[in-house]
Each structure stands twice: as C-alpha cells, then as structure tokens.
C-alpha cells in the first residue's frame, strides 16, 4: 500500500513486508528510472513476486509519481536523491538494504552506496552504463529535443501524474553531476541490462573496473528489459547468495 513520508519534499513509497525486521537478508530498495514511478517500474513488471520473501521498499523518486516535485534543478542532484533514500530508510528502521536501480535509479543507487556505504549491502545497476545518458540533448529545450533522451522525455510526459517541467529540472540536476566510474562504491555489484540497451552500452567496461559481472538479456532493449524473467532471476540470485563476486566485502 502506498504511503507518504512527509518532509520538505514528500516521498510516496510502497512497502512489502517489514523492512525493520532483523534477519539474514536485508530489505531490497528499488529505485525506478527517469519519468517512471515505483508502480510502473517495479510493481506492474512483476518484481514483488520475483523477490518474494524479501522485504521491499519502493519509493517514487522526487519529481516523479506521487512524490514532491520541486521546480529547481539543484533539488535533483544525485546527492539529494541519495539523501531522500537515507531519510526513508531511517523512517522505516532499515539500517541496511540491497539497492536495485534501473537506469537513472541505478545512477542514484550508486550514489547512495558511495556516500552512505554502511547503508548498502549489495548493489544492482540495471539498464545502466558509464556513457552520458543526456548526450546530444538540449536539456533546456526538451519539448522539442530530437536526441534519444529528448524522445524518452516526451514519452514520460504521457505517463499520468508526470510533470514535464519537474522532469526537465530533474534531468538538468542529474546532468550537473556527470557519472564517473571512480571512486566506486566498495560493495558487491551486479550489472544487468538488455542486450540491445543503448543506455547500458559499455556496461561491461564499467563492470570490469568494479570487478562485477554483467548479465545481458537477449533481444531486450532499455524499455523492455526491466520485466524480463532472466533479469529478475539474475538479481534474485545475486541478492540471495552468501558472498557474491563484485567488489570487496
């Protein structure tokens, strides 16, 4: 059921199970992609069934879904979004989580693990690679931008509840902190993406520098890999094993 964490920027989120329960396996924090929300990205794609038995925390990132939508670019930097996640984990009594991000959610899950290393046990970066996702886009004129990102932005505009101005501010805020592979979070990582996912191009390179594995889903692209059974099984397996490869423990 959806709940809202109040604050300067309210956060809508869904919880499954008890994230504060002590146990071997920590809850799984699910971070959705740009222009999506927790429901579209994770619930409707069948992730709760795939991760059955694990407590889940699935927020709408600021600027998205039922969460607050500040108008200024600076509100959307990765550090601000990671800060939201810490605030949410604190409120739910979840000391440590396995973080799973898709696309922009992966970028911010990386940030969370980097800035708050004690809070993340394992990290899954899905639909994500080291390339600049905003390449070629004019982030100040997204309503008529013809780059791949501009087109994705306009598709996002057709999702009920989305606010294109807030999304554009989010894109600029994220772009103001270009991704760098160094420093990398010191937790075990898994990269996973569709074989044809242009956003996740060169994920292999990044994974190699992190000592992590990459799982590729045949025939899938950035838009349709998220619901793939092969992706879910890889993530479930990675989060379940005792000591996975990918970074120091």
């Amino acid at each position: 059921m959806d709940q809202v964490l109040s604050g300067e920027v309210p956060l809508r989120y869904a919880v499954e199970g008890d994230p504060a329960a002590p146990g071997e396996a920590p809850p799984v924090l699910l971070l959705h992609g740009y222009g999506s929300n927790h429901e579209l990205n994770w619930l409707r794609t069948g992730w709760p069934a795939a991760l059955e038995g694990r407590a889940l925390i699935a927020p709408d990132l600021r600027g998205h879904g039922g969460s607050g939508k500040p108008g200024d670019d600076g509100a959307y930097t990765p550090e601000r979004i990671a800060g939201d996640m810490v605030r949410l984990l604190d409120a739910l009594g979840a000391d440590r989580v396995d973080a799973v991000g898709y696309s922009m959610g992966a970028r911010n899950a990386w940030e969370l693990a980097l800035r708050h290393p004690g809070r993340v046990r394992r990290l899954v970066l899905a639909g994500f690679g080291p390339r600049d996702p905003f390449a070629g886009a004019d982030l100040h004129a997204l309503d008529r931008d013809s780059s791949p990102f501009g087109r994705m932005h306009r598709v996002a505009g057709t999702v009920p509840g989305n606010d294109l101005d807030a999304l554009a501010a989010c894109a600029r805020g994220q772009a103001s902190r270009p991704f760098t592979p160094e420093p990398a979070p010191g937790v075990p990582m898994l990269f996973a993406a569709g074989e044809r996912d242009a956003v996740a191009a060169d994920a292999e390179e990044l994974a190699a520098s992190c000592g992590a594995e990459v799982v590729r889903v045949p025939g899938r692209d950035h838009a349709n890999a998220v619901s793939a059974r092969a992706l879910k099984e890889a993530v479930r397996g990675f989060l379940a094993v005792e000591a996975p490869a990918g970074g120091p423990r």
Partner: protein
Amino acid sequence: MTDTTERTFALPDLGEGLVEATVLEWLAAPGDRIGRNAPLVELETTKSAVEIPSPYAGTVVRLHAEEGEVVQVGSALVTFAVEGPAGEADDGAAGQAGIVGRVPQDGEAPRRRVRLRPPEE
C-alpha cells in the same frame, strides 16, 4: 473425474487508452499447471513493459498469440482448464466483470471468450 471448465482470458485493458500490446515472453506453456497470480505472460505497450499474473488456478490449454505478436485489448490471450463445477470456477477471476452465465454441461468441450469489457462493435 474432476469437472473442468475451459476459461479464455482476454488481454485486459492496460490503462491509459492503450489498445494493444506485444507479447514479449510467455511464462507458462500449454500443459503447465499454474497458480492464481503466478506470472503468466510478459507484455510490452508503447509506454512500458508489464507482467500479467494468471487470473486462474488451473492448467494452461492454449496460448493464442506467439511471442512478438501484437494482441488487441479484448482479444483472446490464453485458455485455461479450471477445476471445479461450472459456475463455481469463476472464483479465480474475482473482480472481472462480465463473466456470468454457465458453460454447457455436455456436448463439445466448453469454450467461450471472457472479456473484461465488451468489444467495440
């Protein structure tokens, strides 16, 4: 022998005015026993990918579309054999409007289309 009733599940309305979806991957095959709410099929619309859970507990009899095929909302997606006497087997599809009535007790194997909403005439 236990009574079974064939139930055909049509592509439901996926919302937001979408009229069709592409089958990405079947998560069950003919002959498989499937639980209600178990993953059934993965679909893609112009906006997103979704996983559809099974509306019934039963056995998969027929898949009505191949992977990669486009299916219209209201068109047959999959047929199940559902255990239980006719008239009671609807329990598995609670919340689906428009599936009232009884299937034939004898003669040909009972078949009918189940629609979540009436087709546009």
